[in-house]
């Protein structure tokens, strides 16, 4: 449930669902997000669900904080639509060409490469949110012994498709961008494709993702 609603500037509502990061709170956020998105309230435009917050932006020419707050407070998201989640397998190649931070991870986690991959692969991760850059999924939770801080100095360019870790989360860089997460491998799959306007992102909040290892040859032949 929403614990508190406040304003973020003069054109957005800040809905606070608590401070913890877990599936149950995040599922509430997603339920509200999907309910509001479907109802198309006049003036509401962008919605940004995250771990435990939902930001609702609106067009100040059409509505205002009081109206949107009143509307959101009276929504019944409890018995609304099921969050309609999918289970997806993402191929990942962890060959040394791609696992740019494996040495660093081995040192920080005090685990061997084999053990790190064993801990990471073939497990179910929950998609909490999409964002920062277009289509980037925030997946969790990693095992307790797999949690590393981000790089002290972020890379200027992280290659497209990089699968990377930080704290209890994994993500996928949907296109080349700056970034500071620990890179473990690379997926040949197009996780975000802006030419598909209806469904540009493969993974949606609420989905479950499993990483399956592929070899360098399989990686090279993947898109042929």
């Amino acid at each position, binding site marked *: 449930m929403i614990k508190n609603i406040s304003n973020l*500037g003069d054109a957005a509502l800040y809905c606070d669902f608590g401070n913890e990061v877990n599936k149950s709170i995040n599922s509430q956020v997603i339920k509200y997000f999907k309910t509001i998105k479907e109802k198309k309230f006049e003036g509401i435009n962008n919605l940004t669900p995250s771990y435990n917050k939902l930001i609702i932006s609106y067009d100040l020419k059409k509505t205002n904080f009081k109206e949107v707050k009143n509307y959101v407070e009276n929504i019944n998201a409890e018995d609304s639509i099921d969050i309609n989640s999918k289970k997806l397998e993402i191929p990942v190649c962890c060959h040394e060409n791609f696992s740019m931070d494996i040495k660093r991870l081995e040192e920080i986690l005090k685990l061997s490469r084999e053990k790190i991959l064993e801990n990471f692969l073939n497990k179910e991760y929950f998609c909490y949110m999409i964002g920062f850059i277009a289509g980037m999924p925030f997946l969790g939770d990693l095992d307790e012994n797999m949690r590393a801080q981000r790089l002290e100095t972020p890379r200027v360019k992280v290659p497209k498709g990089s699968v990377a870790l930080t704290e209890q989360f994994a993500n996928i860089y949907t296109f080349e961008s700056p970034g500071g997460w620990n890179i473990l491998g690379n997926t040949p799959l197009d996780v975000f494709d802006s030419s598909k306007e209806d469904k540009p992102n493969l993974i949606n909040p609420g989905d479950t993702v499993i990483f399956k290892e592929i070899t360098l040859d399989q990686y090279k032949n993947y898109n042929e």
Partner: protein
Amino acid sequence: MSSNYLDIIRPGINTTFQDKGRDHLYHIGIPFSGAMDNRNYLIANKLVNNNLDSSVIEFAYQGPHIKYSGEKINFAVTGDVIFSIKKKDTEIEGNSYESYQIENGDEINIISTNKSVYGYLALGGEFDLKFQWNSCSINTKANIGSNNGKKLDVGQRINLKKINSNKDIKKISYINTKIENIRVIKGTNFDYFSEEGKKIFYEKEFTVSKLSDRMGMRLEGPKIDNIVNTNIKSEGLIKGVIQVPADGNPIIMLSDHGTIGGYPKIGVVASVDYDRLVQMSPGSKVKFKEINLSDAETLFKLYEMETQNLISQI
């Protein structure tokens, strides 16, 4: 092949197609984009008898030098801009907020914006552009929008698919007012900062850094001290949010911002001041002034009425 087109002789520093932007895709990581200075965007379209949501060329600092080929067409420039029009035998200095007619072989040379950042070039007609999510707006970081999501380049040819039959020449007298005080509403993490830090935020002067672009404006000045946590759990951002990372220097989110961020939010720029905020060039001095939500709403209404008034006078 279109018979009406522009050739880019010099593209300028950051020249893109923009319109009203995209307002419903934050949840998949796609920001607003769109014209940075919305008022100047609307005026540009009205001056050339376009629909108000038509595509225009936005430039920053140095603009494009273009050569036009085709039948007669009107164009107008808005913003505080220095430009010239080259016809067969003459070259004249152009004025912003006034439309001109050009014909086959004429050139428009946008030399630079003057003590501001963004300017707009509208042509009386419709560019032949590929839209994504109902917008031509180019986001060069995500390569989204027309022109494959890239800024305009030298040697490029841009086709027009329509030229307005209404070729009335329009003019308006308008001066871009500068502001020294940016009005802000308290952010959701305001209490993360020390008493001294809060005082600095509202009382001291900050300088706009060179590291500013369509994604964000970085400010330099006295450090704002955080006493709670320099990171928060990542959450949504909107245009105008002022984040303060661990180094204590504020960053204001602008139209192409990342949709999610993990730095504490000390404030949010009031919508009324957004158009003028984005026009502050590197080296400009900024001071923040706190206002409450209801004043921010009223001020925006007045600003919007003024914009509508200006447009209806054209």
